[in-house]
């Protein structure tokens, strides 16, 4: 990334020398709307999103901005609720006149805000949402995803599971909305393809206070492995309650990458130990880019980044690279520039696939050991990504 910044500074110097070259755009900052949960069960996720965006924005602005324009982030609270997310996005588009929008966490919010963006003629990107449909059958020319989707995660996890516990009997518990259904379906498909058995699944509403009522069906099924894709505060309650009632004793818990993160792990203590997930990021990734990112993040926020912070951090560099390639912030030009774009992130180079606007990246299998996210396996990006299913362009 250090080298990239040097290269980025070169055309910048030329541009600064001739302000007329920046075209129609005035000296106003580039406004990026951030429609992310600041309250509610996904508040811990929104927090990491904000930290990631803030850090990258600070770095980019300090290095001269994007083609001389400073970046300004404008925050709104989507409450992990699609209808709130749409209202706030509308405000960001119409009142604040943002150039670009990101931050949505709830997959339902991302889909809904994506439809709004199409009508408003703006581009959005999610750095968090998992549901395959966002870059699959419900894809949109105005929506990009820079993080790994459910299928990428489950491909990595299912491959590891087939090796470590062949022919496992799996039960699944997901949150009852787009993301939960999508992640469970993707993982069940992965398990079945590799010779495992799916015993069944159950879906709990977002923000469930007590998961003990779900234990009956889990006990009755007697699985060896439980897959879960709950996230945020829900994971804290699910795993600690399972630990209290002795369900963790003879069961391997695996799950989505957002289930156990730096942000909620302290509230769970030992209940998260042994949890395995397929994920696009771990603070333990041993590359100079990541070490630099983790150090800067710790210095700024006094905690470790998780996948959401890393992907949100990378998003600012994605947008920067796209605007620089397009030479403009106009929607059509930036969209064309984003398609097929390769850009640097803490977890290595990512490629934005042109066919469905889904980022391709290396996937990791990560196990939680005493609060640390240790990498126990890797899957190359092209093997985890799966075919393009988007047919809209």
């Amino acid at each position, binding site marked *: 990334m250090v080298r990239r910044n040097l290269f980025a500074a070169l055309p910048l110097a030329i541009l600064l020398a001739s302000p007329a070259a920046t075209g129609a755009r005035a000296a106003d900052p580039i406004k990026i709307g951030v429609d992310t949960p600041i309250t509610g069960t996904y508040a811990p996720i929104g927090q990491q999103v904000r930290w990631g965006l803030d850090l990258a924005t600070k770095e980019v602005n300090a290095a001269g901005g994007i083609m001389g324009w400073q970046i300004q982030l404008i925050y709104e609270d989507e409450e992990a609720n699609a209808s709130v997310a749409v209202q706030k996005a509308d405000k960001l588009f119409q009142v604040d006149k943002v150039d670009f929008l990101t931050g949505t966490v709830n997959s339902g919010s991302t889909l809904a805000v994506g439809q709004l963006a199409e009508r408003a003629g703006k581009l959005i990107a999610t750095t968090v949402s998992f549901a395959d449909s966002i870059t699959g059958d419900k894809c949109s020319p105005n929506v990009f995803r820079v993080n790994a989707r459910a299928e990428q995660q489950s491909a990595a996890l299912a491959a590891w599971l087939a090796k470590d516990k062949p022919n496992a009997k799996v039960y699944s518990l997901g949150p009852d909305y787009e993301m939960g259904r999508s992640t469970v379906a993707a993982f069940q498909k992965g398990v079945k393809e590799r010779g495992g058995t799916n015993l069944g699944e159950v879906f709990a509403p977002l923000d469930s206070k*007590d998961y003990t*009522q779900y234990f*009956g069906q889990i006990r*009755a099924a007697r699985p060896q492995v439980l897959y879960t894709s709950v996230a945020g505060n829900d994971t*804290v309650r699910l795993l600690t309650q399972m630990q*209290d009632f002795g369900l963790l004793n003879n069961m391997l818990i695996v799950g989505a990458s957002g289930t156990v993160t730096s942000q909620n792990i302290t509230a769970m203590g030992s209940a998260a130990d042994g949890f395995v997930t397929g994920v696009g990021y771990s603070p333990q990734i041993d590359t100079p880019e990541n070490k630099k990112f983790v150090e800067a993040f710790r210095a700024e926020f006094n905690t470790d980044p998780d996948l959401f912070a890393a992907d949100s951090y990378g998003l600012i560099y994605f947008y920067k690279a796209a605007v620089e390639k397009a030479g403009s912030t106009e929607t059509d030009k930036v969209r064309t520039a984003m398609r097929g774009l390769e850009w640097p992130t803490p977890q290595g180079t990512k490629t934005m696939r042109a066919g469905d606007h889904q980022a391709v990246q290396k996937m990791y299998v990560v196990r939680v050991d005493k609060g640390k996210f240790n990498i126990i396996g890797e899957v190359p990006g092209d093997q985890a990504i799966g075919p393009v299913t988007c047919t809209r362009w």
Partner: protein
Amino acid sequence: MLDYLQFVLAPQMVTGLSLGVAVVLVALGLTIIFGLLDIINMSHGEFYAVGAYLALSLGALGINFWLLLLLVPALMIPIGFAVERGLIQRVFNSPDRHVATLLLTFGLGIVLEDVLSLIYGPNTQRPSTPIRGAVEIFGIMLPNYRLFLIVFGLLIVAAVALVVYRTRLGAMVRAAAYDRNMAASLGVPVKAVFAGAFAFGIALAGLAGVLLAPIYSVFPTMGRDFILLAFTVVIVGGMGSIVGAVAAGLGLTQIQAISSLYISPVWSDPIVFGILVVVLMLRPQGLFGRLGRA
């Protein structure tokens, strides 16, 4: 078959019981405030959250959990007293008492929730469990703390019932609630009794917060989790009836627990609120309530 009973049905009923006691604990204060005093306290859940946060803060100062069980309710009493005197009394005698108290306490709840979020931040915090480990009864794993909660919770309920039904103080509260003018003319200090009973209800909400925080974690919106179920318990059990609240609380949670073995647990809320509708239609006074009696 026996295997199913032991490993599936029995644990499910026991977890249902522990949820039931939790619900009864939250509903207990509401039975007094809503059932006896006739104040629709929509902020009851937020007072439960305040209790949990007080326990968290004081616990961080190094105060022992067992002391908190006394200290937090004691701190909640002046808060409850001030709310009743400063806010509730201003609208209590208006012709639209129900609407006015509902809106007032609803607003108060929103303010409290945001204040908690401003002070403590939106993230979930989990106090450590004061009693660790678990016991195995006939092969059923039961966390020691849940066992303690079930026993202690039922003791609290019994003690409150004793105070309300068997003491002179309880008789004064019931008299003041039933006919405040008559009670006042007989020398009952009605204003103090009302404020005191309200504060007692708030203290119980705070106590529930201390007791349930280690299980359900502490976060600013935690009050929303139990409030609708608590209202349902009070209405189904019969307004102001402590026996009714216990029966309804334990009964409804058993229905939830057992039904969720056979159908998706997502249905447990529609089932409970469906029962509420049926009870309101067929027996509006509730299972243990008598119409015309506060």
